[in-house]
């Protein structure tokens, strides 16, 4: 551990003697400012992250004192060649796509409808779209176990009240729809975040752009398309990156919704983090948890990199 930390810690080089006193002082101060944070992150982030990669090539249960045998990619084969894993990958990818587009688009449209029109009173509408964010994601998901309840739950009660007395979906109990119900909670909660960030971004747009567009006879839709959307492009990239990362690891939604029976019914809401959590916390298969961790790491970094590369490439040149 300490070997790793000292390797990462910036060290004065040979040029120390020739450096000016300002440069020397800056190196010393940097050493003082960086070291505590680097020790914390070294112990709790970098060391376990590196270990996960090593561990994934061994066969180890996580309990025996020695690490077991080096088995190459066999652990990956064992961890991936099963139904729960294929479900987890399918759900994670679908969830990533939903996260990228659904809360962001609804949030942007809602923010534009409130900020760029003569809707009154604005604070009331802003509050309305932000309300889900008062709850944390985990608490929201715990609440939705009640909202989704087949008998007394809010949604089915509303369906009853509207007169459809024989429609009683088992939102979380039916393996065909449980994953969409879970994504519904995610969209419900994260739209509020996207909304509030887009609201701040739209408020910063120069109002004279809108006025001159109006003078030129642009319609509301044209103003949205040609002024609002290009103006919030950087913020949109930021929001979409966050939604992508959260959408690929929505543990805080699935855990409260499906515990006990995490990832159920019958693996229908399984995602990579739930598989890893089960293997890591029950501690019977450290190597497989590590292999899945490596896969998740590659998946998230790969997808985020491709997304940012695509945004960079399609950026307007000015």
């Amino acid at each position: 551990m300490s070997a790793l930390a000292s390797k990462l810690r910036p060290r004065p080089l040979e040029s120390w003697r020739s450096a000016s006193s300002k440069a020397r002082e800056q190196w010393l101060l940097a050493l003082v400012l960086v070291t505590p944070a680097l020790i914390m992150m070294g112990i709790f982030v970098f060391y376990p992250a590196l270990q996960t990669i090593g561990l994934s090539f061994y066969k180890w249960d996580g309990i025996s004192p020695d690490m077991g045998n080096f088995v190459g990619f066999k652990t990956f084969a064992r961890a991936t060649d099963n139904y729960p894993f294929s479900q987890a990958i399918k759900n994670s990818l679908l969830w990533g796509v939903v996260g990228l587009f659904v809360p962001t688009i609804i949030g942007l449209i809602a923010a534009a409808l409130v900020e760029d029109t003569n809707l009154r009173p604005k604070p009331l509408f802003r509050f309305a779209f932000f309300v889900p964010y008062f709850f944390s994601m985990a608490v929201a998901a715990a609440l939705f176990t009640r909202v989704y309840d087949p008998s007394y739950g809010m949604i089915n009660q509303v369906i009853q009240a509207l007169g459809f007395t024989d429609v009683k979906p088992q939102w979380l109990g039916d393996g065909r729809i449980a994953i969409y119900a879970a994504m519904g909670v995610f969209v419900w909660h994260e739209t509020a975040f996207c909304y509030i960030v887009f609201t701040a971004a739209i408020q910063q747009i120069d109002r004279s752009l809108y006025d001159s567009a109006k003078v030129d006879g642009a319609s509301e839709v044209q103003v949205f398309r040609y002024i609002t959307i290009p103006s919030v492009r950087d913020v949109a990239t930021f929001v979409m990156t966050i939604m992508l990362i959260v959408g690929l690891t929505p543990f805080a939604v699935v855990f409260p919704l499906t515990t006990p029976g995490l990832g159920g019914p019958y693996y229908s809401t399984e995602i990579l983090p739930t598989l890893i959590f089960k293997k890591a916390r029950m501690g019977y298969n450290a190597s497989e948890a590590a292999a899945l961790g490596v896969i998740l790491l590659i998946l998230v970094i790969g997808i985020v990199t491709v997304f940012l590369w695509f945004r960079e490439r399609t950026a307007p040149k000015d």
Partner: protein
Amino acid sequence: MLSTKLMRYALYALVILLALPFVFPSLWVLMASFSTNTQITMDSLALPDRLYVENYAHAWTGAKFSTFVYNSLAVSGSVTVLIGVLATMLGYAVSRLDFPGRRLLLLLIMMAIVTPVFSYLEPLTRVVRHLGLANSRTAVILTTTATFLPVPTLLMRSFFLTLPEELGDAGRVEGASEWGVFRHIMAPLARSGVLTVLIFAFLWSWNDLLLPAVFLQAPDKYTIAYAITTLKPAGFRQDHVTMFAASIISTGPMIVVYLLLMRRFIAGLTVGGLRG
């Protein structure tokens, strides 16, 4: 004239329709938190016959939510202080100091942001066990601080980059040391950035589920978010109202931020996003 008036009504109808799915479940939860379990099981859309304020009292004392709120305050308070100090220090170093390894350090911080905790969860639990911190709030505090630190660090970096370099140089001409420039000139000027980071860190750790769920086994150490998720419809006696009241209690910090500090929080978010 008629058509613009019609457009106006259409706009209101559209926005209200769009807002309804977000508002209605929250109102339902609020209403149910003042209702009774029998009323909820019979007709959960009906208003209770009176306000059952005692649900909150029961959540606070009977269901031990005073303990969970205390735990959350202890955890989030410590995380907030640690992150405020560490992110300011690290953010200043990577934005304003010239030292060998700076680019590598920045790259490591970026990589830590996109590395999900899940990918190294199992080794992390072993590190915590080896340090003798299993089943402790300290484990949650240290792991939350370390894993969340990269984001506020980049936020502080963006704030320091907005400050003009001439201020530091002026201090140096006056004979201030590098430490003096940081401690007495730059850090005080970055106050609003620090405030954003403090809010961010507090809300993040208050809301987090994963690390408490992994590291806390004894219920008397649970944080409020984790405790609420354990109050699920599993037993034969379902106590809905306590859970609803507890979730309303859990919104406390967010309400404070919304009422007092929202603008600053959002400004911080977007600055971080634009330059991150």
